[in-house]
């Protein structure tokens, strides 16, 4: 059976991974290559690397950064930012990208979606849409011009699907970096309009938010950026909590299946007797 995916977004600004808050405040986290390596070791299902400065400055994707970041990435890597032509995509593929994420190009140049889908296959094209709440509905947000567009995220997703997109990444501007949970209504509006897989993003604080998302929408993947960065083994611990109610993949060597997890979705301390025993336990290194 197909598992629900847990994906991580890495927002890169001027070559550095940043924590983003409400699309306007950015705190530095570290080098993309290091973040990718750790997320991979902790058993993430997919990594989405978005370079938010490339499109702003109207420059091509930062190929050398992607090449370094992909070196230790043995899970699918989607790359976005600065893609305006097919030759950018071809070059990114040579740098270790597996999929591409189109945001601005998807808004203003749907031909690029079709062209990319035709050459590289639909499965390769992810269209990323930023949605913002306006009145009772939602609008697509243009993060470059910082304005709301007249089209709704659901309509845009449907247009993207028609043009050949293979997946939709829907991100909530209002929830970005707020730790207030996913915008279920926004994400549902998109899920209902398309038949291709949808990835929900924006606002996740812990495993509970991800479980909520999976239980209340038909998304294929839950995505988080910020909260994975700040604790050791954040991914496998989160997955161990989610696995109790949702079918996700948990195959890391350290899987926390037997651990107790507290109400804040953090590991509970093991009993002293167990810890004492562990002192003398030999843990073999995994050999491939």
């Amino acid at each position: 059976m197909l598992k629900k995916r847990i994906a991580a977004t890495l927002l890169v600004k001027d070559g550095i991974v940043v924590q983003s808050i409400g699309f306007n405040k950015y705190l530095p986290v570290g080098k993309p290559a290091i973040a990718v390596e750790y997320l991979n070791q902790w058993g993430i299902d997919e990594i989405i690397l978005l370079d938010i400065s490339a499109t702003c400055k109207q420059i091509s994707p930062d190929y050398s950064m992607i090449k370094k970041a992909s070196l230790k990435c043995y899970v699918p890597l989607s790359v976005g930012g600065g893609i305006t032509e097919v030759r950018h995509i071809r070059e990114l593929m040579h740098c270790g990208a597996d999929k591409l994420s189109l945001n601005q190009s998807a808004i203003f140049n749907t031909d690029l979606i079709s062209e990319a889908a035709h050459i590289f296959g639909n499965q390769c094209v992810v269209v990323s849409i930023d949605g913002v709440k306006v009145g009772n509905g939602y609008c697509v947000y243009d993060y470059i011009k910082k304005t709301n567009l007249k089209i709704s995220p659901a309509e845009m997703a449907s247009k993207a699907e028609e043009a050949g997109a293979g997946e939709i990444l829907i991100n909530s501007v209002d929830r970005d970096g707020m730790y207030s949970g996913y915008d279920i209504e926004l994400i549902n509006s998109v899920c209902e309009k398309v038949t291709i897989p949808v990835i929900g993003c924006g606002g996740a604080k812990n495993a509970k938010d991800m479980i909520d998302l999976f239980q209340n929408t038909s998304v294929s993947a839950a995505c988080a950026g910020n909260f994975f960065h700040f604790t050791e083994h954040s991914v496998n611990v989160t997955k161990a909590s989610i696995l109790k109610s949702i079918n996700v993949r948990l195959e890391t060597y350290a899987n926390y299946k037997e651990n107790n997890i507290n109400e804040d979705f953090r590991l509970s301390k093991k009993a002293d007797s167990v810890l004492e025993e562990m002192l003398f336990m030999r843990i073999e290194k995994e050999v491939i």
Partner: protein
Amino acid sequence: MKQLKIVIIDYGVGNTHSVSNAIKHLGYKQLKISDNEQTIKEADVLILPGVGAFDECMKNLKDSHLDTILGEQVLENKKPILGICVGMQMMAEFSEENGIHQGLNWIHGMVKKLDLPKNFAVPHVGWNNVTIEHNEPIFSRNDENCNFYFDHSYYFHCNEEYVSAWCDYGVKITAAVQQDNIFGVQFHPEKSQTNGLKLFRSFFNSI
């Protein structure tokens, strides 16, 4: 560890760099990404990666005469080859992606669009567990029911005798095929974390 001469076939559209990263991680140093006839002739083992549409991939192979070069190495010299995703699909007789197109015709079968029950999204994207029919050689290090990363809209429809693993996505989907020295996987071992690395290791160790 035997240092094999591994060549990843470069035909313009594959994710060659990803495959090379994964294989390098396992410690194989004599690894090349190439479309050069001489290099391919000298290789011990070939990898045919794939990301892209069937017709575009086949066209690129033919334009660089790789179809004949590979045919000679694989069918006559019996060189082991592993096809990944579209790389595997191209081993079929033909595909119906973007119209009917001829494949390399190495394994009897055809590539068809996924025809799924309602509520199953196409493409089939994500981690799915496989049921292994033949452990040897490529799955010898993997656990039964382990997960691999899939990302495709078309599948290899062929006789059961060639299917070495399959997965369940509303219908039974061919996950891996093998016939003599020819191996193919629908999923991406280079993107399936430890399980994929184990598969590469088993494949290379069997040579």
